[in-house]
């Protein structure tokens, strides 16, 4: 780490909007890796992931002005990247979205280490237990809308169901989670 004062992400985006390619490089160094990692968990083709991340940063270069300065840069980039990925999925049948909730059924039995418990506890409270109890259909909707930030319409396209079905499932999933948590959580629309 250098001793230079750390510039905020939002300031870097503003610099990119002014055509500063050094700021783009810095943003890539901060956000490129985790975007790769997060996309790789959803797509089994690393070529596609590389292209999606490339597209995302080229979009950032061109559309940096559109960034709302009060937003979070990471969330904004993820929004661009994941939407690109979903639209790719629609045009190319050979790209497979890993059905994340259904993999590794054996590992689900293995309880996470104490550290994981802390992490889950901090992030979600008892939510982890609630999520585990949801049916796969409900979990994929929660994943797409709540965790990945798609609109219900986009989630419907991704999951191959109608938008109303997504809304219904999301509604029921939230009700189930509320019941599990005994008290309603903040931040669940």
């Amino acid at each position: 780490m250098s001793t230079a004062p750390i510039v905020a992400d939002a300031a870097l985006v503003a610099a990119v909007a002014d055509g500063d390619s050094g700021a783009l490089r810095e943003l890539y160094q901060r956000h490129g890796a985790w975007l790769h990692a997060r996309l790789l968990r959803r797509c089994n083709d690393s070529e596609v992931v590389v292209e999606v991340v490339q597209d995302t940063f080229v979009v950032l270069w061109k559309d940096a002005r559109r960034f709302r300065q009060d937003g979070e840069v990471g969330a904004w980039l993820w929004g661009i990247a994941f939407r690109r990925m979903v639209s790719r999925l629609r045009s190319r049948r050979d790209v497979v979205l890993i059905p994340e909730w259904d993999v590794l059924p054996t590992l689900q039995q293995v309880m996470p280490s104490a550290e994981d418990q802390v992490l889950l506890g901090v992030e979600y409270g008892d939510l982890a237990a609630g999520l585990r109890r949801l049916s796969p259909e409900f979990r994929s909707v929660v994943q797409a809308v709540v965790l990945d930030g798609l609109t219900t319409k986009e989630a419907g396209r991704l999951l191959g169901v109608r938008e109303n079905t997504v809304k219904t499932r999301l509604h029921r999933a939230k009700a189930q989670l509320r019941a599990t948590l005994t008290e309603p959580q903040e931040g669940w629309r």
Partner: protein
Amino acid sequence: MTTRTGEWHADPALLSRYLAGDLDAVTGASVEQHVSRCETCRATVGRLLEPQLLERTWAGIRDGVERPTPPYPMRVARRLGLPEPTAVLLASAASLRGAWLVGAFLSLSFATLAAYASGGTALAPFLLAAPLAPVLGVAAAYGPRQDSLEALIVTAPYGRTRLILLRTLAVLVSVLPVTALLGLAVPGPAWLAAAWLGPALALVPVLLALAGFVGPRFAATVVSLVWSGVVLGATWAPLAPTWPVEAAQQGVYVGLAVAACAVIALRAGTDRQPGVAL
């Protein structure tokens, strides 16, 4: 950028398991949510991921950022799903540039206007212009004078026949829909709106066949003069205004087109050398 997690950070072992896909869904999602908001853990992920992968992506980003915006026809061709080399070849054709298309559109509009103003008695301007627009477009799509890439194309191992047919197709796609729309505005029998397609589609292979012998410019001149002769002759005779596109004449055009295609196929088959046939 700080969250409720405060000073807690995922340790590298947990993150490696996350990257390897070894975490179950809920734990994985949990790590993910934390990493996307935590600067320190994002940096750790950056150290754990293959540097080659990150470098490869960055190289692509740099290319994408430094590449100038391609001209409009190329972007349209790319949008339609054509590969980039094909898009470049198409965009360099003179008759696919904006100015040419606007010119063709204007002359066709005036021809339609003239036919419309005469109330259907003088169809000659439209019948003259409509089939010639694609013919001239195709003629201008290749050849040493029109093509800015000519020197490159001659030396490249790229089938000339393929290039010419590709550009012909592109010209037809860009000109025919506009002409068809204008044809609807021409007064007269309803079939007239489609009838001009016969000579239009027949004259293009005739032009290509002729161009193989005498070059595109001369061939375009010959075809234009002959077609003008047919249309003006019919007006002069005087025959019905629709005479050049009536059923019997359409048969002749089909025959001509078939003969021209045969000539092209024969020459393309005998001369294996690329570029000789056309």
